[in-house]
């Protein structure tokens, strides 16, 4: 009796959460298959009347969007790559070494992560113009890294702390240098942490809007979220909803693919069996 009620409650809650989360996504997907005529009527129905791929053809023919997509991929991947490398090294040092000011480094990193992005836009704008970084890839990669590094360091140092120190000592006794022990034993064991940090960083860089719109001026470095705000169409009272929805679908797909790919990597308990069990 009690168990049946529990199961029922779980099921209902599950459905509620799914609807809550996925309804907007479904709405965007449905919009992307609607023609402009359909989206401009007052209250369009949920499912498209005459599904069409025209929106996709249009958006993929739009050179501005393709440029923005390229920028997004480039900037997000480079920022992720560098951020994960720096975070791995820093987190390892924090987890393994006892040095003065360790606490300060960690709390400072957290403070940076909490800093509101908007407050940095003005100073960064001025600085980047002086340094000729305005409207360049590095101009976005650098701030993205500084905002994602703290979280990556925190995540990774937690993972490193979980790895038994004996692993590394065993590797050293087996003839490894500290660097070899780190690369061949510690990093593979921290792989779930590395992937988690990488995904968090990638999401941040991929979705970021404020810096992307403020620190760029042309499609040579503008990313997709910023570029989409320029999709206004000919009539300001009638934005091209179908196009916007299609662009959203196109930028969401890579994220979903990445999550599905790495989901299997982010399995806990990789260290099981290393020590007595």
């Amino acid at each position, binding site marked *: 009796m009690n168990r049946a009620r529990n199961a029922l409650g779980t099921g209902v809650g599950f459905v509620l959460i799914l609807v809550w989360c996925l309804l907007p996504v479904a709405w965007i997907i449905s919009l992307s298959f609607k023609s402009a005529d359909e989206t401009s009527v007052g209250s369009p129905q949920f499912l498209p009347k005459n599904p069409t791929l025209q929106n996709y053809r249009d958006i993929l023919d739009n050179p501005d969007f393709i440029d923005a997509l390229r920028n997004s991929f480039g900037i997000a991947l480079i920022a992720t790559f560098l951020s994960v490398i720096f975070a791995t090294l820093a987190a390892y040092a924090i987890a393994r070494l006892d040095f003065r000011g360790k606490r300060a480094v960690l709390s400072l990193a957290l403070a940076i992560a909490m800093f509101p992005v908007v407050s940095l836009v003005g100073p960064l704008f001025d600085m980047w113009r002086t340094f000729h970084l305005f409207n360049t890839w590095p101009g976005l990669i650098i701030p993205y890294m500084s905002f994602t590094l703290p979280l990556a360091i925190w995540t990774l140092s937690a993972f490193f702390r979980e790895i*038994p120190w*004996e*692993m590394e*000592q*065993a*590797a*050293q*006794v*087996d*003839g*490894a*240098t500290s660097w*070899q022990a780190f690369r*061949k*034993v510690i990093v*593979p*064991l921290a*792989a779930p942490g590395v992937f988690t940090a990488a995904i968090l960083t990638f999401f941040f860089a991929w979705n970021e809007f404020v810096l992307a719109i403020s620190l760029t001026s042309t499609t040579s470095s503008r990313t997709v979220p910023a570029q989409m705000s320029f999709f206004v169409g000919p009539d300001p009272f009638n934005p091209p909803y179908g196009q916007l929805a299609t662009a959203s679908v196109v930028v969401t797909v890579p994220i979903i693919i990445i999550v599905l790919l790495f989901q299997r990597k982010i399995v806990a308990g*990789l*260290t*099981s*069996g*290393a*020590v*007595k*069990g």
Partner: protein
Amino acid sequence: MAAIDMKNIVKKYGDGFPAVNDVSIDVADGEFMILVGPSGCGKSTLLRMIVGLEDITSGDMMIGDRRVNDLAPRDRNLAMVFQNYALYPHLTVYENIAFPLRLAKAPDDEIDEKVRAASKTLDLDEHLDRKPGNLSGGQRQRVAMGRAIVREADAFLFDEPLSNLDAKLRGQMRTEISRLQRRLGITTVYVTHDQTEAMTLGDRVAVLKRGILQQLATPRELYENPGNLFVAGFIGSPPMNFMPATVEGTSVKLPFGAVQITPEKAEKAAGRGLLIAGIRPEYFEDASVKTDRAPGSTFRAPVDVVEWLGNETYAYIPFEAPPEVVTQLRQLERDLDGESLHTQLVVSLDGISRIKEGEEAEIWVDGSKMHLFDPATGENLTVDRDHAGRILEVGAEEVVAG
């Protein structure tokens, strides 16, 4: 292969407390050396100093002819088996064993040959493709040993390798380690807190207490000629019985009666007042089942508890002791990680003995094997120095005896 020579090794941590204090142990080439002692005696620290995972505060660590104090672990060419095995969970058993060879950049066919040889030795052939997470405790233990033997290391170091296994497996692996070591003839240093492992495996055993080497001798010497109260209490199971004693001529007065000892022993202990007598449980016997009339003494005592094990019987006989002896015995128990609530005598009798709980029994004891200890210093007054290896001298630095 090489000898390991530790000369006056000291390890001090940040607070200045010496975890290992002036320990000198020479491990001969091919010898199986045991470091044994209760927790916190510095045995693991000493092992980690040999392998290079701990810095040495002072003293010389010699492996072969090289002083290795300042060498990194990878340059010492030693193989170590860790307490928790420290297998690499992301690698297969094969790759775990091959790991040291891959680091040494050995060619693939050589690696394959050596790994297969090691796996054959350790009976791991069918598990080579599995990950450590899917193995049982004993199999993991064997993989850890495989990783050690696949290299041509100068010595093996074991850090309590059997403490995570259940009792039955522990016995089997103990035999296995012993067989392997004899076959490979490799210098081995083995840390344990288990005196059974120490007695069965070691060519020689170093007993440590609070960072100080108490006695370095063969298992037989340790058992028959313990240098002090601590070693006497640590080696042997059930442990040696300690009770207050006073020597009068060649007779020793114990709580339950007088026992005759040899004139030589009596002479060494004469005129010392109150002493602590140590007699191992197996030097007692039920007088009614004792057929051969060996020299010895008999006494009658009330038996408190009887434990019949089939092949033998343990009987417990409580006794009263004067306060100074009780204090010393309590301290000894603490040093041995134990907790004794009663001053009692444990006697090991033949399994056919019919003594019952609560009865008064007649017990025979072989007084010639009794040891007498100074209650103040714990020193064994009756030790045979020619057969006791090296003993920590009371109130002085260690000197070599015998």
